[in-house]
């Protein structure tokens, strides 16, 4: 190439037909193109042992680094050294913005360079996928001199190679500047082509590794969130004198948007309990669960009037969530003094009230919490008797599916509830959850599942 330097003026473009055959295209100052083809045999015969060794060394080095930033530095240094050049720079394609970003400009000054795909020499290589050789950059109209001006570097000749991944997609561009003691040769071009393949693989590997690390971090955070949320829902079920309470929650993901709670208020001589379902699943819903618990506990400590509590809860949720988020909420209060159940229902599934094996859905209620301000909810009352059972659940129970996409449904649920003959509340709960598992089999769970039971002991 150096021999032809006088006749090559602007840009010398070559196309690599495949990895083995190299076709070089030189553009002359008179506009004539000259092409030269090299076969694998030519290449192997003419590569010196030193060049072969440097390729093997470079491959080993590229395979040894997984850290993304570290890898870039190593690529620059390795390419600069292997091609006996003064400097090299690496560009990575930002697919979304269709620009090339230079991660590091080697040398004294590190400036970030952003080039649109298609523009400049790097942009041209990224667009066409060709390896370019520019004999004299200052004579080439595609060369942007401004970078030299900012860095103080003087580019003479340059090799530009696209980086293609395994699928043949261009992921970046590498530029090598100023061959020491002369000009770049056809073999430098070939060497860079061989290195580019390995560089692209190394970059992709490092990227995957970086992503898997990020994913691991998210997984760790999720585990922490899961532990925190577990603490928000009751884990132990103390024995009260008048009633038994038991609940279970199985989130569809690590964390969920179902909530249940109970609280014995000595101040008001009452037991409060609640079950709720929050719009959505996962983290966003889980964040609302923690807010709901805080505001619920605070409200029941300040008032015994369910109408007032529900009004305040709804207004708080309206004000503190986006307009499309809502919470279905069933709130009960058992007054121990007169053994009466008081409840309100804010858009939640009807709970079942079971007395002497007769099921009665509690079909009253209003809009879910969180949609409209200043809604008042009607408080209903039931005088309790021994063995009365209240069964509350979220729609993840009735909408759980089996392999045939059949839903568990209310009919099956009612059948189970009707033939309950167990005494211990935990056994009743386990029986119901067991039936769900039996029904769904190994079909994945899509929604959070929660049940809450209250049984009158005397």
């Amino acid at each position, binding site marked *: 190439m150096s021999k032809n330097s006088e006749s090559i003026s602007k840009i010398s473009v070559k196309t690599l037909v495949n990895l083995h055959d190299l076709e070089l295209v030189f553009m002359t100052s008179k506009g004539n193109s000259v092409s030269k083809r090299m076969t694998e045999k030519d290449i192997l015969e003419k590569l010196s042992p030193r060049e072969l060794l440097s390729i093997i060394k470079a491959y080993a080095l590229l395979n040894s680094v997984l850290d993304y930033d570290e890898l870039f530095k190593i690529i620059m240094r390795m390419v600069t050294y292997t091609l006996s050049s003064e400097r090299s720079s690496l560009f990575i394609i930002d697919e979304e913005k269709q620009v090339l970003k230079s991660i590091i400009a080697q040398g004294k000054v590190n400036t970030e360079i952003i080039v649109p795909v298609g523009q400049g020499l790097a942009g041209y290589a990224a667009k066409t996928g060709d390896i370019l050789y520019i004999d004299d950059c200052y004579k080439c109209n595609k060369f942007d001199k401004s970078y030299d001006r900012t860095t103080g570097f003087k580019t003479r000749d340059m090799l530009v190679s696209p980086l293609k991944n395994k699928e043949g997609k261009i992921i970046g561009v590498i530029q090598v500047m100023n061959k020491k003691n002369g000009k770049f040769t056809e073999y430098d071009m070939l060497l860079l082509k061989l290195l580019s393949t390995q560089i692209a693989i190394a970059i992709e590997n490092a990227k995957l590794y970086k992503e898997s690390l990020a994913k691991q971090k998210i997984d760790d955070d999720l585990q922490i969130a899961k532990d925190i949320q577990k603490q928000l829902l009751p884990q132990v079920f103390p024995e009260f004198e008048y009633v038994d309470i038991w609940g279970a929650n199985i989130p569809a993901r690590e964390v969920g948007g179902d909530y249940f709670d109970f609280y014995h208020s000595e101040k008001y001589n009452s037991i409060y309990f609640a079950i709720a*379902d929050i*719009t*959505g*699943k996962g983290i966003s819903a889980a964040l609302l669960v923690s807010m709901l618990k805080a505001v619920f506990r605070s409200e029941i400590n300040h008032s015994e009037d369910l109408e007032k509590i529900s009004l305040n809860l709804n207004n708080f949720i309206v004000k503190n969530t*986006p*307009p*499309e*988020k*809502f919470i*279905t909420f069933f709130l009960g209060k058992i007054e121990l003094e007169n053994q009466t159940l008081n409840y309100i229902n804010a*858009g939640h*599934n009807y709970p079942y009230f079971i007395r002497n094996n007769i099921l009665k859905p509690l079909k009253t*209620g*209003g*809009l*879910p919490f969180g*949609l*409209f301000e200043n809604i008042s909810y009607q408080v209903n009352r039931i005088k309790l008797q021994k063995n009365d059972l209240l069964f509350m659940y979220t729609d993840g129970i009735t909408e759980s599916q089996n392999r045939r996409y059949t839903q568990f449904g209310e009919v099956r649920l009612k059948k189970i509830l009707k033939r309950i003959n167990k005494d211990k509340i935990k056994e009743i709960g386990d029986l119901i959850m067991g039936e769900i598992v039996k029904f769904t089999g190994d079909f994945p769970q899509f929604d959070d599942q929660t049940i809450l039971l209250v049984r009158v002991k005397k």
Partner: protein
Amino acid sequence: MKLTVKEKEGVSIFKVKGKMLIGEDTLVFRKNLIEVLEKNNKILIDLSECNYMDSAGIGEMVRSLMTVQDRKGQLKIMNLSKKVKDLFYNLRLISTFKIYDDETTAVMSFYKKSITKAKAKAEAGTKKKASTKKIK
């Protein structure tokens, strides 16, 4: 979910096809609604081909209703499938929305009020005139 928007008699009709679920579906709906609201605040949502909505979808309907009302517009829904109707019913939202069973009635309903208003105004006008005459 597939969303199409057409205009009929000055009413923008949003047709939801398939399932409307949390995530992209609700965001696509929101984005389109905001764009249409720049020009028109008469919104009709056609749910005849929407066979399922999760709670986020329902929430988006409520959010849309509030957005439209904030801009002094009207939002109505038509042709709910049984499944979706049950959802609205269970959440006691059925009376929050104005729901219609066919397109013509639904589209007409956007103008009914203004027609009756205009009529009432006209009637009030004549009464006023009559009373003025009396005084004379």
